[in-house]
């Protein structure tokens, strides 16, 4: 196992706790320089002195996405504006977007965390890294870019889209590692097949997935399609972006860089802290960020922490499970909680249908109706009505087992559904709330 920074990556739990405590106090002190935290922490009589042990973090209020929106543009900035060297912003469709500021040290720290992730994935000097994630205000592309350069890889900053060119570059530049969203990876694999090419024509050895939740079945499918390892990268723009947690591949889950973040899991309804092993909303506190510290930020991502902290890779950082959904992705259909990732997971197990799907929700006579559109594949169509009826039944049954509600299945022609590029939009909700 290779490390980017052996000393910090193999730190013991006790030493880590001491480091976290020290950094938490510094974080609170820095946060008090921002108008937002000066007010919120002042109202609650909280200061660095309130922290005697890590448990004291529980006395601090959560910071929500809405607090970031309400702080637009600068109420969370904790350093002079002149010290800031970069900003990123989310593309919020509702309300204002959220802005995150970085000073030079913040970018240096972020790059270091990403470098740790990439080395953990087996990346090394000389690798060719094709970054197929969007650049710009979105952090996915730019975040891994600098980490990959720091490791010494040749970076191809191609961004998302233009699939034929992407595949041409695989061949022309001998790409070994790609960073991509799972939905785009599925699309690219379709195009590779349509071009009459196969993974043997490339030198790919690792896929790094980020930016959207997906199922284990999708990962397995993609590992088979590309015949390489696929590793999960987790991050969120409020915590810099990609590089918050990453898979070592030895055990399930992604190690969270706990020297830089304190991670908690809470019940999204009550806000109560949950023990490791329980599924809930992930909450992060930054420990090193200077320009914009965030305390107990509610990620809206749902996952759980593994109970064991030791790992055969030598790291003792807690592992986070795959993201099962987002609190705001969660659909409530006939009173039942449904995540698109559950539907995706089931569809991936059915070889007769393609990889694109769409979920439509509408209301008929005051009852929710859920329709799932899937594409049949040209290879499995034999011309019989009965066979298609059976396929519909099979999908309907599989979904009912998983999500406990009955869905209507609509079979579509191959290519009829919009191919997903970048962040996939899979749900169309026409219900009037």
């Amino acid at each position, binding site marked *: 196992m290779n490390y980017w920074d052996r000393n910090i990556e193999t730190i013991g739990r006790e030493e880590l706790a001491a480091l976290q405590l020290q950094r938490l106090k510094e974080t609170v002190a820095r946060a008090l320089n921002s108008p937002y935290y000066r007010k919120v922490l002042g109202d609650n009589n909280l200061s660095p002195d309130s922290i005697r042990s890590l448990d004291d973090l529980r006395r601090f209020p959560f910071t929500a996405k809405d607090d970031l929106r309400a702080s637009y543009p600068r109420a969370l900035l904790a350093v002079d504006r002149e010290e800031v060297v970069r900003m990123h912003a989310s593309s919020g469709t509702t309300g204002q977007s959220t802005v995150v500021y970085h000073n030079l040290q913040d970018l240096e720290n972020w790059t270091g965390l990403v470098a740790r992730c990439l080395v953990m994935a087996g990346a090394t000097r000389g690798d060719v890294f094709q970054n197929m994630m969007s650049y710009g205000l979105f952090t996915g592309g730019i975040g891994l870019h600098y980490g990959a350069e720091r490791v010494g890889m040749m970076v191809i900053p191609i961004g998302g889209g233009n699939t034929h060119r992407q595949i041409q570059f695989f061949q022309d530049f001998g790409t070994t590692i790609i960073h991509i969203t799972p939905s785009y990876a599925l699309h690219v694999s379709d195009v590779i097949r349509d071009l009459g090419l196969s993974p043997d024509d490339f030198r790919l050895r690792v896929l790094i997935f980020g930016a959207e939740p997906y199922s284990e079945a999708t990962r397995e499918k993609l590992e088979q399609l590309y015949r390489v390892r696929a590793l999960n990268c987790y991050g969120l723009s409020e915590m810099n972006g990609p590089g918050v947690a990453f898979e070592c591949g030895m055990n399930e889950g992604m190690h969270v860089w706990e020297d830089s973040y304190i991670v908690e899991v809470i019940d999204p309804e009550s806000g109560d802290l949950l023990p490791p092993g329980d599924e809930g909303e992930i909450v992060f506190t930054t420990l090193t960020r200077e320009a914009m510290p965030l305390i107990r930020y509610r990620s809206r991502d749902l996952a759980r922490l593994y109970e064991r902290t030791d790992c055969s890779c030598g790291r003792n950082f807690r592992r986070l499970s795959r993201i099962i959904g987002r609190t705001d992705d969660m659909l409530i259909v006939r009173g039942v909680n449904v995540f698109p990732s559950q539907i995706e997971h089931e569809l991936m197990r059915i070889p007769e249908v393609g990889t694109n799907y769409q979920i439509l929700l509408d209301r008929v006579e005051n009852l929710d109706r859920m329709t799932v559109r899937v594409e*049949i*594949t040209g290879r499995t*169509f*034999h*011309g*019989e009505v009965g066979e298609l009826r059976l396929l519909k039944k099979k999908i309907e049954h599989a979904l009912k087992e998983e999500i406990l509600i009955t869905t209507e299945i*609509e079979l579509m*022609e*191959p290519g009829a559904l919009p191919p997903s590029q970048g962040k996939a939009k899979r749900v169309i909700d026409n219900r009037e709330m």
Partner: protein
Amino acid sequence: MRVKQISVFLENKAGRLWELTETLREKELNIRALSLADTSDFGILRMIVNRPEEAFDALKEKGFAAAVTEVLAVEVPDRPGGLAGVLKALNDDGVNVEYMYAFVEKKAGNAAVVIRVEEVERSVSVLAAAGVTILPADEVYNL
């Protein structure tokens, strides 16, 4: 004996049907017999064309989900009870007819019908024994 039928999966969209016929027209392919099996949410268009392999490739290229199925084409006397005679022979022998449809053109005063059965071999002998004329593929494509 066996005739190649092209089946195409169609969502219920009128535009796709037009695209399909355009695809055939571009290749100067001629439809000899046609049937649209329509369910509540999708359809399957079945057809006999003069050059089935070519039609299959052209449709695939345009992104259609298409399949080739083997069917039988039989001559049916053009008089009351003509079709019943053919079906009786199959029914008496327990052969299940999944679907059937007629050709546009007649052959020497007789109608021609496409029959899809599961057991093609057995149907051929049953029909032959009953004196039904089974049309050879070459003749069918050019009917």
